[in-house]
């Protein structure tokens, strides 16, 4: 599939924004921290901007962005419609939470739980939109949606971690939470990479309905490109996909774990360590963008069979 920049950006950035609530919820429930106003304002603004810019960028790839409101109507059948609706519903507890939390009114925990719940629902719908497409065998995989959710929680938690680190808040328990999330994410990814190696049962024989020992693509409908070939059939061949997978794992999994585990042994200015933790988050974000890019570029749509692709 063609990797559309706006879709990659949307899914990673808004996923991070939603994930922030999960990371924060863990801290609010299990760690005693008295958050100061600066922290609250910064976290609220950051999560809000990430979600809003993500949603806005997702409308950029539409042919008619001015008609985007129509996309809320078909929630009975369409995961894309459900995603849009879930994203809008999330704003209600989210904005109330910001208000209650910043003003320090009791009841914000319940609103945070609701925001976290709808955040996961929104990412779930995004994942399902891809996972429900039978036409793209590597997406039609039960691990796609969990990985979307885990990616959001990983990045969101790393953001909250770097912020808590900056404000010198208690991190002991939260560190363990991040280890577990990253470990789950890594394991899911490994199992996913192994499982997508399996060949799809859609092949050239079922595509044209002829059984034969050898079917070769002789001639296309035209000599140039068309919408299908540019949108769904990649001409970019990634030579070093394994290398990119390793880069992703290093940036998004190994670097954060190493830094969280080893920062106390680094002998340097505490302010530099604080900044490094923010850089760790940015690197993890870049890793996730690479992962999402691979998710698109390595997926093969079955329509490619009609244009001479192998399954």
């Amino acid at each position: 599939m063609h990797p559309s920049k706006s879709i990659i950006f949307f899914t990673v950035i808004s996923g991070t924004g939603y994930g922030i609530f999960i990371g924060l919820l863990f801290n609010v429930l299990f760690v005693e921290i008295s958050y100061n106003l600066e922290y609250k304002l910064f976290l609220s603004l950051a999560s809000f901007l990430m979600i809003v810019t993500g949603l806005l960028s997702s409308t950029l790839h539409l042919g008619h962005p001015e008609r985007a409101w129509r996309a809320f109507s078909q929630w009975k059948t369409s995961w894309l419609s459900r995603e849009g609706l879930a994203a809008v519903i999330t704003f209600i507890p989210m904005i109330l939470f910001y208000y209650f939390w910043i003003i320090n009114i009791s009841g914000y925990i319940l609103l945070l739980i609701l925001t976290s719940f709808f955040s996961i629902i929104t990412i779930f719908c995004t994942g399902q939109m891809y996972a429900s497409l039978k036409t793209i065998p590597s997406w039609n995989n039960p691990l796609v949606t969990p990985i979307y959710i885990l990616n959001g929680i990983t990045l969101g938690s790393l953001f909250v971690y770097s912020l808590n680190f900056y404000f010198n808040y208690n991190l002991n328990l939260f560190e363990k939470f991040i280890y577990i999330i990253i470990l789950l994410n890594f394991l899911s990814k490994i199992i996913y990479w192994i499982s997508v190696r399996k060949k799809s049962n859609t092949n050239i024989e079922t595509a044209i309905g002829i059984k034969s020992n050898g079917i070769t693509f002789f001639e296309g409908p035209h000599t140039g490109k068309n919408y299908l070939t540019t949108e769904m059939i990649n001409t970019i061949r990634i030579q070093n996909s394994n290398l990119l997978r390793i880069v992703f794992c290093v940036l998004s999994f190994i670097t954060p774990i190493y830094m969280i585990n080893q920062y106390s042994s680094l002998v340097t200015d505490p302010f530099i360590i604080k900044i490094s933790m923010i850089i760790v988050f940015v690197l993890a974000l870049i890793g996730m963008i690479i992962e999402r890019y691979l998710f698109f570029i390595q997926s093969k749509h079955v329509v490619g069979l009609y244009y001479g692709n192998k399954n």
Partner: protein
Amino acid sequence: MTELPKKTNKKLGLVIDLDICVGCHACAVNCKEWNTSGHSSPLHDVEPYGDDPTGVWFNRIHTFEVETEVKGSKTVHFPKSCLHCEDAPCVSVCPTGASYKRDEDGIVLVNAETCIGCKLCSWACPYGAREYDETAGVMKKCTLCVDKIYNENLPENERVPACVSSCPTGARSFGDLGDENSEIVKLVSEREGYNLMPEQDCKPVNKYLPPKLNKDIFKNKELKPISKDEDQDFEDWIEQVQGASE
């Protein structure tokens, strides 16, 4: 609405005979010609006279070489357009309801007034039946010539999709595939017509008739001259040629 009808009154569709198709592309050209001024008009082209022209087509012909048991390999021309599936995934993924399947005849259409151009339907279709019109910013697809098959201004025998009326070999048939007594259903059962990609569970209405890969006309047959008197044949032939040129 993007909920699929449980049952349509008719199942209008095409039956394409891969044994007859010669790959002349006339159906695709006539499709473009009719539809560029029809329901989804215009079918935009981008840089039609430039170095890298592209454009929207509803019907495209692919050609494959198929190895056969009897005689080497055979060229199979494979025309492909929307199959107007019963369980059309392109319809149920549509977030706006712009894609719909008609209750009365099962034709799958796009409402260009409400399509937001998200392209998800084209991702959901395994057959590549939908093409995005980047000039108009909306998705377009085969309409089964809905503006031709019901057009009372046309003589009755012309009320068939453009691809069917233009096929010089009669490789394309049009009819109600839900009517057990129709000619088209009989043709499908006689020739063992099949669905494309049945494992994708789209239940396409359009059917394909298989090419006869192992035709035995050449098998175990001695080639013999068909006439006994060669001189007489030659004279006849000269006469025929002269007659034709006069």
